[in-house]
């Protein structure tokens, strides 16, 4: 290499290189300035915007569902409580391959086809970012198995919660009702935001009627979540307000005895405190286990319940409408006295049948040979039909309707359990409006013995009996005595005012009827004299045998020949003690036969259980 040339080049190249280096650095400086400008924009000018986005990213508001209020009986026995339970939830958005995930989950957790079906249904109508429950009530083993494999299932979570539980199973199920998953119909009648964390809602019974009281107010927590949506920590917490507890008027022990006594029969029994309208026992048979409904009943079980001939889901106490039969007679008799149509001592001769003037048709008495000469007292005690045919005819349907309506026949009692039906107290107007026909006198006759068009519900009959026992002081039947806030040991009683009491013309008239009812149980010829023996207290009652099936004039009723469904209903109403009534009952045994044979003994057991509770150690 020639030295001279090298040195010359060296100086020139050194200068060139220096120049180019400076240019390169300027280039770098310009780009770094652009970068800094970008950073100033992001971190200073748009800082607020990105802070908001960052918080939106990480902060989510989660509802905290309130604990549902508990339900106790009048003595503090718990009838509905909440048990800790774990459910499995899947957030569809975070699951890449749903069928594979479900299949895989099924290897560690028992997932039935029913669960999958329900899950798919729910999923179809839930936004993908919201978790959908797959299984309820996981066992401890299942929770443990899942915990081990949790990392394999992004978007799948075990969620702890409280689940409604009815510790006594079917006991008082028709009164309590049950909760079930919130469905489309529920969504329309609730404040959706207050239910944002709640999965269940009262469907029937007290659970439904007192839904607002039991539910409470939802709370919220602001949580920080990671990109997968897993909650990392809570930032702010607004605690929920738990629902209020309910204390019922129901006596669980009496309820249990009543249900036991009722046995396998079909029907209803109501026990009520005449003083204040408190429901002491509320039985509709058959019953069902409300726990089945809490976490979704499977379709087979549901169909079995629904298609059961006995209709266990049917609330007979509120919705069963039965002809009152002879249990109506004391009310009709009282009406005759109070309206001045008959008197205590007026006699009617009973030949075993009755004929309208100028008509051939014979209206039969249940006793073929007739009762002979009867007055009001013996007519009630022996349940003479002819006496009441005659009385009803004298009163006429208008006055009959007017008087019976005062006891609440034909209208809802207003009990605080939803779904009650009104029964039917027929009148001229009703017949013209509904049937488009005039009222016939023969229909007045059979209304007088509680047959024909007339229908009552067991709760109505019990309420009317209670009203009779208290000389017309009519209380609205109610089953919730008081509520209790979660943080307050004090109970807040629900005040129950009398409704439209029956006006008294002459108190003595009431004495006569009550005495006649006393004769039913304690009189020599009383239809329910069997249950009056060795009672130790005085009972006033009335038997009833309601025809389901109209017999022809000359046909003799033979229970054995009739299909069970066509047999007479057996009814009994009673209150005791006669002087100071503490309990009134109404019992209807469907197709049970005669009132004296079936319904009356059940009443005696209930009365004994309630009135002699303190007697035996």
């Amino acid at each position, binding site marked *: 290499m020639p030295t001279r040339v090298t040195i010359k080049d060296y100086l020139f190249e050194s200068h060139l290189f220096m120049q*180019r*280096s400076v240019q390169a650095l300027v280039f*770098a400086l310009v780009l770094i300035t652009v970068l800094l400008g970008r*950073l100033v924009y*992001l*971190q*200073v000018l748009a*800082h607020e915007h990105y802070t908001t986005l*960052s918080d939106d990213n990480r902060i989510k508001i989660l509802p905290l569902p309130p604990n549902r209020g508990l339900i106790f009986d009048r003595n503090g026995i718990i009838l509905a409580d909440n048990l800790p339970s774990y459910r499995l939830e899947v957030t569809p958005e975070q699951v890449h391959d749903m069928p594979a995930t479900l299949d895989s989950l099924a290897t560690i957790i028992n997932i039935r086809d029913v669960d999958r079906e329900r899950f798919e249904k729910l999923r179809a109508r839930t936004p993908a970012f919201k978790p959908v429950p797959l299984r309820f009530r996981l066992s401890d083993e299942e929770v443990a198995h899942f915990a081990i494999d949790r990392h394999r299932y992004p978007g799948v979570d075990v969620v702890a919660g409280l689940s409604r539980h009815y510790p006594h199973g079917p006991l008082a199920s028709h009164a309590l009702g049950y909760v079930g998953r919130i469905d489309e119909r529920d969504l329309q009648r609730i404040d959706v935001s207050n239910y944002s964390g709640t999965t269940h809602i009262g469907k029937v019974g007290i659970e439904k009627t007192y839904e607002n009281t039991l539910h409470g107010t939802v709370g919220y927590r602001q949580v920080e979540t990671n*990109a997968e949506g897993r909650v990392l920590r809570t930032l702010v917490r607004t605690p929920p307000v738990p629902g209020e507890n309910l204390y019922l008027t129901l006596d669980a022990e009496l309820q249990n005895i009543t249900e036991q006594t009722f046995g396998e029969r079909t029907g209803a029994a109501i026990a009520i405190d005449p003083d204040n309208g408190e429901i002491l026992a509320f039985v509709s048979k058959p019953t069902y286990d409300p726990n089945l409904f809490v976490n979704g009943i499977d379709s087979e079980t549901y169909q079995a319940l629904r298609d059961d001939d006995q209709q266990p889901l049917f609330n007979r106490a509120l919705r069963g409408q039965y002809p009152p039969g002879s249990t109506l007679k004391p009310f009709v008799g009282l009406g005759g006295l109070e309206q001045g149509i008959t008197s205590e001592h007026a006699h009617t001769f009973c030949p075993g049948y009755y004929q309208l003037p100028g008509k051939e048709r014979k209206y039969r008495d249940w006793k073929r040979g007739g009762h002979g000469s009867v007055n009001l007292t013996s007519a009630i005690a022996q349940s003479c039909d002819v006496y009441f045919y005659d009385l009803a005819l004298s009163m006429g349907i208008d006055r009959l309707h007017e008087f019976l309506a005062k006891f609440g026949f034909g209208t809802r009692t207003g009990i605080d359990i939803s779904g009650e039906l009104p029964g039917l107290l027929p009148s001229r107007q009703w017949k013209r409006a509904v049937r488009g026909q005039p009222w016939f006198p023969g229909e007045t006759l059979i209304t007088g013995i509680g047959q024909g068009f007339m229908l009552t519900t067991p709760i109505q009959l019990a309420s009317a009996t209670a009203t009779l026992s208290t000389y017309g002081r009519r209380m609205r039947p109610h089953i919730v005595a008081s509520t209790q806030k979660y943080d307050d040991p004090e109970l807040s009683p629900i005040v129950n005012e009398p409704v439209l009491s029956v006006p008294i013309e002459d108190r003595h008239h009431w004495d006569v009827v009550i005495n006649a009812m006393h004769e039913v149980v304690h009189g020599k010829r009383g239809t329910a004299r069997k249950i009056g023996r060795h009672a130790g207290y005085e009972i006033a009652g009335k038997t009833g045998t309601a025809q389901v099936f109209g017999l022809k004039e000359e046909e003799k009723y033979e229970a054995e020949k009739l299909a069970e469904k066509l047999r007479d209903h057996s009814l009994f109403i009673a209150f005791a003690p006669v002087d100071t009534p503490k309990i009134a009952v109404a019992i209807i045994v469907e197709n049970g036969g005669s009132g004296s044979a079936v319904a009356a003994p059940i009443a005696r057991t209930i009365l004994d259980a309630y009135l002699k509770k303190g007697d035996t150690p």
Partner: protein
Amino acid sequence: MSLLLDSHREDASRRDWQSILHLDALLLFSLIALSTLGLFVLYSSAGGDNQLVLRQCIRLSIAFGAMALIAQLRPQWLQRWTPWLYSIGLLLLIAVLMVGDVSKDAQRWLDLGFVRFQPSEMMKLAVPMMVAWYLSDKRLPPSPSRLMIAGALIVAPVVLIAIQPDLGTSLLIGSAGFFVLFLAGLSWRLLGGLIVLAAAGAPILWHFMHDYQRQRVITFLNPEQDPLGAGYHIIQSKIAIGSGGLFGKGWLNGTQAHLEFLPERSTDFIFAVLGEEFGLFGIGVLLLIYSFIIIRCVYIATQAQDTYSRLLGGSLAMTFFIYIIVNTGMVTGLLPVVGLPLPMISYGGTSMVTLMAGFGILMSIHTHRKLLPT
């Protein structure tokens, strides 16, 4: 060259520890400061994964070791071996395309049995060395015909790497070669022509791009179009940086990073973690260190005594800059997503060793000078 080596005595007063160890104190300490800052950010982004931080420490040690080792090699020795290094690298790149391991849908790795090796990493150094070697042979600025050959030396490996496909690395290698040409005095007219040519070639390039690469460009142009898909990275990193503000959310308190909203937070997107936790202030500190390193490297290059060292040193300094600007530009949404780490900060091994080897070359250039008597 022999003149410079033989006719001048070494200055005894300069024979301090830097000369003995062939290290440059200013560069060394700023690199240590940089890696220390990097470890702090990595510790946070790793979110308690201490193994990851530990592995990074080991890699840093290896990288610093490699730097110190390379610094011992005389530039003349490197120059002598340059053509060989380049040729072997090119052959390996061809080998990778034929028998390389496929990882993440890209053929980058060559399994040599005892070690998995990325020939493209080697080319990050070999290409600027080769171009510098070729150009330093004759007087500068280079003639058009020599430029053509130099261009071919650059384009061959760039294309081979781009079809692996590894756009980030080929971009880096291309710019490393380009900076040698630029520093060698590439005329501005020719440079303008190249830019026009590049603009015209963009549609052709588009045609040859893989779908995911096209997607990256589309995403860059409009990240909100697909916020949960390809645009997610950019949106989340902008949120991280923007929400950091002036002074950041504090070390270990970055919600974007710690709550896993930010993807690739320990590797390519670690700059966003720094921005979120230390704010504009923290980024300023980082950019200051980077700038100091670049300036120091360019200074070293200008002080070099032969053309090969100068061109190579300057190119290495500017390549380091390209690394930084491409990564930060990507993370802040200024540039499309190109898989390049943030030098010395991002978690990852091979590229860091290459990078530090480059600094080793610069230290070698600086400490093997023969000073002229004053």
